[in-house]
């Protein structure tokens, strides 16, 4: 069964994102929210890790929550191409679309 991984912690402050990306399987999805959206800004080590994992794991989908980007002043142009921006509405659709949700604090 595909798993939706929800990551909330900043990748610079906690190992949650890395721990998550070490364990994702083909067909899973990762949603970056709260301080974890900082991982999606290009030009950093966590962003490079995201891109690498997206290339390695078949069918892995990476999402980043729009309100958290807006709050932190991160524009779409700053993001790596591997991630897709979702708003609050599609976040709910995403969450109900996966039988299993795994939070990474």
């Amino acid at each position: 069964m595909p798993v939706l991984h929800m990551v909330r912690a900043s990748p610079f402050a906690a190992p949650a994102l890395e721990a998550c990306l070490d364990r994702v399987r083909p067909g899973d999805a990762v949603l970056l929210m709260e301080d974890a959206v900082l991982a999606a800004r290009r030009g950093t080590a966590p962003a490079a890790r995201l891109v690498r994992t997206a290339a390695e794991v078949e069918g892995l989908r990476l999402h980043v929550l729009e309100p958290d980007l807006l709050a932190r002043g991160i524009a779409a142009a700053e993001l790596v191409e591997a991630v897709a921006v979702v708003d609050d509405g599609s976040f709910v659709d995403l969450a109900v679309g996966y039988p299993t949700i795994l939070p990474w604090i």
Partner: protein
Amino acid sequence: MKNFVFVVRRAAHGTAHGRELAEAAMLAGAMDQSVAVAFLDDGVFQLKSGQCPAAVGAVAVTGPLAALAEDGLARLYVESESLAERNLSAEDLAVATQVLTRAEMSDLLGRADVILTA
């Protein structure tokens, strides 16, 4: 007069710590203390331009920081290594802040009478 240094190490809006520290620094500065605010590690994200905290129901932090600097209530410092690790530069910041190296930042902390962090 005491030499206060407020240290901000967390990013904005995941928690309200940045705003709370800015408010505390503002009060200390208004009491005629020597106040510095040091942004290091994820704390540098507090200064990023273009923030819209209302998107997550949070309150502004760059506004109070600008007031601190403009009214001379506190001096703002940001660590260059922390910026570089996050692919940020001084041009990405909403508030004029003096950039210090990590070694200079350590000296600043070493000279403090009181260090406050959140």
